[in-house]
């Protein structure tokens, strides 16, 4: 198991009213779950915590998360990931999916 934390700068996200969290994905083989939570203390930071069952890919994680923080306004968000071997494209897809759930107000 590899665990690490990393904070990225990102434009502030306007959280929809009444929305406190968003979840995407599932912890299954080649998949992951990601939880977005409000973190109003740091409105211009995406605060990440990753737990992965596959060690040794921290550079790829940082690249995927860094890209996401740069491409989407997700400041003021705490991102927690439970991973079971998702490929980088799946990581990007799940982050975007959670972001979509957040804005669409769907569970």
């Amino acid at each position, binding site marked *: *198991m590899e665990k690490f934390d990393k904070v990225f700068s990102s434009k502030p996200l306007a959280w929809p009213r009444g929305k406190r969290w968003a*979840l995407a994905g*599932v912890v299954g083989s080649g998949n992951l779950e990601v939880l977005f939570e409000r973190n109003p203390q740091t409105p211009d930071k995406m605060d990440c915590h990753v*737990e*992965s*069952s596959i060690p040794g890919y921290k550079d790829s994680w940082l690249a995927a998360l860094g890209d996401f923080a740069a491409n989407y306004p997700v400041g003021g968000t705490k991102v927690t990931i*439970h*991973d079971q071997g998702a490929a980088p494209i799946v990581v990007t897809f799940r982050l975007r999916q959670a972001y979509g759930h957040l804005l669409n107000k*769907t*569970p």
Partner: protein
Amino acid sequence: MSRAHLFHEQTARQRLASLVDPGSFTEYLPPPARVMSPYLPQLDIPVSFDDGLVIGRAKIGGKPVYLAAQVGQFVGGSVGEVHGAKLTGILQAAARDGIPCVLIVESGGVRLHEGSSGEIAISEAMRAVFECRAKRVPTIAVIGSDIGAYGGMGILTACCDFRIMTEHGRLGISGPIVIEKWMGKQAYDSSDRALVWKTSGGKTKYLLGDADVLADDEAVSVAAAIKKLLAKSCPLTLKGLKARHQELEKRLKTFGKTPDPDAIWKALGIADVARATLASATEFAALAKKK
């Protein structure tokens, strides 16, 4: 969710959202609560925010219900200590408040990684089902995905008042691979999907009477079935239990040596097996009535 989904393709949360009155679902112990398995990290297995079970309260057709939906992709939807405690809790709440409980089952049974804690958890959930049944509070199990209900969850499902299945659902105790390992590939080939579904799938279970309703593979059909059952309950009596045991003995005598599941369908009144195999749930139920 805007598009129509097939029930067996939906996630646990999508299933709940599409079954209940829009916006009426309140989740208990949602992902941010982080009530997770204390055992899996010791085995270097990643945990899940909800431990593979979504529980909560909602309304269906304006009537209050408690619901639980298993996440089959997380460790096979298995019942660990936390998962089982959530399941037991929602069933106990149903018994306490006299509100029906709907279980969306998708599980291989006890989470063996958690040993006795998982076994105890599932027996506590069973006790809670019987608490509901003693108070005539309806317990309804829905099996609508390929993972189905096996092991302890197969037993728990059988303990409920009613079972709704789609043709994708499967119900049993030992899974196909387990049966193959014990009996040999010649006796039961677990890679033969047609055989597996003809012996444990929704259509066969409906014909045998183990499933009370056969629903189509979509949330509206499952929701309609739930609505019809919410006001009913099935009394649990010694007389009824003895009758059920006799029925199972008779089933063993009648079909115990039958090598081909199609022969069982025919004996149960399905004249045209090929047509019935491809029939929708509604068509199949109509064919099954023409005995």
